[in-house]
């Protein structure tokens, strides 16, 4: 797979190329490269949610044959979550794969591959899913695994109502978009983890403040009190802090 650096370099060398002449039915290579460059730049500046929607929008716009697209994200190696689907139907189709524990998206996520379904009606690899998807009007599909960091995996799922909508070109361009998506997703996940961490800090800070005032103790002593209560109750310190802030009571603390 092409690395992001390569794509960026490629995009940069193509920058400034005239693109107006290239409005034919298929996107020319030059125009595509500069569009991908634009995508890479805008992905760097957006909020996590916006990044996901941008990736999906870019997939629909740039990859030949795509009508609808979504991203699947695996959290904690178990839960598969659909994000930024371009229509509600996709959410149902993605959920259906999780329910049936079969389907091209799951296959792409777990087997580190690109999966192409030429004709959903004659698809035999995932019979239960194929039947439901055909009923819902899906003609063909293309799914890419996203190489996200560590335990975090995901897939870029592309749908069309036409049979055989995706060709080799779709796969090539799709791989590039998927690699951008992977980088952007990893960043977005990091940002949202940090966001959660900051919220947790805030709650723990409030809980300490309550204890400091209540028992006339220092911040450090208040923290130790929470830590001891956490050991006694086998609950996370953050959970105890949240309970304390909400109820005024410290579970497992002083009585």
């Amino acid at each position, binding site marked *: 797979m092409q690395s992001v650096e390569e794509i960026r370099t490629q995009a940069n060398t193509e920058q400034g190329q005239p693109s107006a002449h290239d409005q034919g039915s298929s996107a020319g290579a030059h125009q595509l490269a500069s569009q991908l460059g634009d995508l890479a730049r805008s992905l760097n500046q957006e909020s996590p949610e916006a990044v996901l929607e941008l990736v999906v929008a870019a997939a629909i716009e740039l990859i030949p044959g795509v009508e609808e697209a979504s991203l699947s994200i695996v959290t904690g190696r178990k839960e598969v979550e659909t994000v930024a689907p371009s229509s509600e139907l996709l959410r149902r189709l993605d959920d259906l794969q999780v329910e049936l524990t079969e389907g091209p998206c799951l296959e792409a996520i777990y087997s580190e591959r690109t999966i192409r379904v030429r004709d959903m009606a004659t698809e035999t690899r995932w019979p239960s899913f194929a039947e439901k998807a055909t009923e819902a009007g899906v003609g063909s599909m293309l799914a890419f695994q996203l190489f996200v960091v560590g335990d975090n995996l995901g897939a870029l799922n592309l749908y069309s109502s036409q049979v055989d909508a995706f060709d080799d070109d779709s796969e090539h361009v799709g791989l590039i978009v998927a690699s951008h998506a992977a980088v952007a997703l990893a960043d977005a996940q990091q940002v949202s*983890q*940090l966001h*959660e*961490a*900051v919220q*947790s*800090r805030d709650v*723990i*800070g409030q809980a*300490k403040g309550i204890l400091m005032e209540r028992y006339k*103790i*220092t*911040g*450090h*002593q*208040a*923290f*130790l*009190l929470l*830590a*001891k209560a*956490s*050991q006694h*109750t*086998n*609950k*996370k*310190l*953050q*959970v105890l802090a949240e309970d304390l802030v909400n109820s005024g009571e410290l579970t497992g*603390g*002083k*009585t």
Partner: protein
Amino acid sequence: MKDPNPPKPSRPEGDLPSGGSGESQRRILGRAVRHSALPLKGLWLHYFSMGGTAGEYELDAYINASYSLPDLQQDILAQAVNEMIDMLPPPPRASYSDDTDDGGPPTKELQG
């Protein structure tokens, strides 16, 4: 650095290795981190989420070298380490001849 007076603990019982000097607290923590092979990045994030103020490199230096942290920071880190250890999946266990399913009896989850 002198260790703080513990805050009038209601019941100073058992399983917390009680303070001692900052240096022994540091060694015990380092041993715990290495034993469970806790990833530094995840540990830092968890420590940060509980009010930690030191950076990732400072944590690394505290755990593996002789860099010192303020008392409160040491305690926040200790809590982060213990919570991360509690979150680790239980090690695989043996089964008995009359166990029906592969996984053995359901293991009790203590997490809230």
